[in-house]
């Protein structure tokens, strides 16, 4: 049976990225955040209240960690394009039985797979250590769609960086700095409220990770759909724009660095 082009490329991307380094980055860091930060801060923050519901800090943190997994998965697609251009596999594939679009789908699909697997593992770890999961059907659908869209926006962002940077050092520096800036200016670790300084609040609401975290947190932890639809729309529109930019830039990528 002949597998479709994009699927063959996806399997290839998955196999190439299934190395201990990537797996550590994908799972190790979020697990560390979840278990160490989650349990350590719990003694400082006994409960977080939202919509008159109290949850533990670990419960509060969990959706943030899931959103982080989405962002980390996005780096896989971007880094793959970088590495393929650096080591001339991009050209090699484009003289093989593939077109540019199937190559792009291969990058997005592998990010989605890493996102799904990463989030599934995080949920298992959460369940094993905390022992509970809150699901409603609508909440679950929103969460899955959000994680899907979130993966596409972050894959697109990393693709743009990969296309626009020429040097490996520059690429690594930008992605590492971006990773921490996006992480810590989002609502992944703490709620963004009226008490948050105005400037930081602005940055936070310009940050897609905030929307991914908020939607996942509201639907999975607080079982609340309040404000979810508007945040979902903002995230979707932003994703369409960023993906459009990535597509345009990708179209202009010429073989050879």
């Amino acid at each position: 049976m002949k597998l479709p082009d994009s699927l063959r490329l996806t399997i290839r991307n998955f196999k190439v990225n299934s190395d201990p380094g990537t797996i550590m980055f994908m799972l190790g860091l979020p697990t560390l955040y979840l278990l160490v930060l989650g349990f350590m801060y719990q003694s400082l923050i006994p409960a977080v209240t939202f919509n008159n519901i109290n949850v533990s800090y670990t419960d509060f943190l969990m959706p943030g960690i899931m959103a982080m997994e989405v962002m980390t998965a996005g780096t896989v697609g971007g880094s793959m394009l970088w590495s393929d251009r650096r080591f001339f596999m991009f050209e090699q594939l484009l003289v093989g039985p593939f077109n540019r679009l199937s190559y792009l789908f291969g990058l997005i699909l592998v990010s989605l797979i890493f996102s799904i697997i990463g989030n599934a593992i995080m949920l298992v770890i959460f369940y094993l250590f905390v022992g509970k999961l809150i699901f409603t059907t609508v909440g679950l659908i929103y969460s899955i769609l959000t994680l899907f869209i979130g993966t596409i926006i972050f894959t697109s962002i990393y693709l743009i960086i990969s296309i626009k940077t020429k040097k490996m050092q520059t690429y690594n520096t930008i992605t590492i700095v971006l990773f921490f800036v996006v992480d810590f200016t989002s609502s992944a670790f703490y709620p963004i409220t009226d008490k948050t300084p105005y400037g930081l609040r602005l940055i936070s609401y310009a940050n897609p990770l905030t929307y991914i975290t908020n939607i996942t947190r509201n639907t999975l932890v607080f079982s609340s759909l309040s404000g979810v639809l508007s945040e979902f729309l903002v995230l979707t529109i932003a994703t369409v724009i960023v993906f459009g930019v990535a597509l345009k830039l990708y179209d202009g990528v010429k073989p050879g660095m």
Partner: protein
Amino acid sequence: MDAISVNNLRKTYDNKKYAVDDISFNVKSGEIYGLLGKNGAGKSTTIKILSTLIKKTSGNVKILGLDINNSMDIRKRIGVVQQDLSFDLTSVERNFKIYGLLWNVKKELLKSRMEELMEIFDLNKVRKNNIMDLSGGQKKRVQVAREFLHDMDLLFLDEPTVGMDPIVRRKLLDYIKMRAKNGLTVLFTTHIMEEADYLCDRIGIINSGKMIIEGNSGYLKENFGGYKTLKLDLNGDIDDLTKNELISMNVNLKNENNKLLITAKNIDNIIPEIIKTVEKHGYNIIKLNMDQSSLEDVFFEVVN
């Protein structure tokens, strides 16, 4: 039938200078065609166009009977070994397996081909090693061997032997010859003239984007070989009178220890006259032989 048909092909990157300038040539099915030229002559650009990686500026190109614009149909039937090393950052064996998957090679077939190629290209010892831990020559071997995993009708090889030791290089050339005998068409570029001489049925030399000469190795040497040297073993060193008479035939002379070396451009035409002159002055010719011009001589002659 022509596997490659190129007519008046031109390519410019900046609308000012042509990297490929009005090139025309054809390659028959099952033929090994060598494209020679200096660095920047336009060889790789030509291969990139013919393998559908970049677009031509003008001209007509047909690959395996298909117009070059049918890139997807062409790509399914060609193999390309680019000049730049290309690989996935994983082990040698995994690189092979992944490449087989990309080309949809059936598992059993992939396994048998992989074993055969590992053997031919002497890669068994490093098959578990990460590609980054290999030497440049070993990486090149992986890149070339990998391309033979899938079926193809036409193979583009852009300087495939760079960094390879002479034994592996010869093995590769013989393997290409064997594949060509079984119907594979090959377009090959190299800077090593002996390789082209050994391998190619026909050779084209390009310079500054233009095709200068084309033909089989014998024809090129015969017609564009430039200077050849006639070696005569005599019963003594020649005197000045004989020397001057020979020099008047527009030749260069070197005479040492009873050996006379005569170098000239069209020496074949004046050999009887040289022999007559030498014998007329009382010298006996003990041994006579002539250095044939090599493909490198041809290259120097036409490119310089």
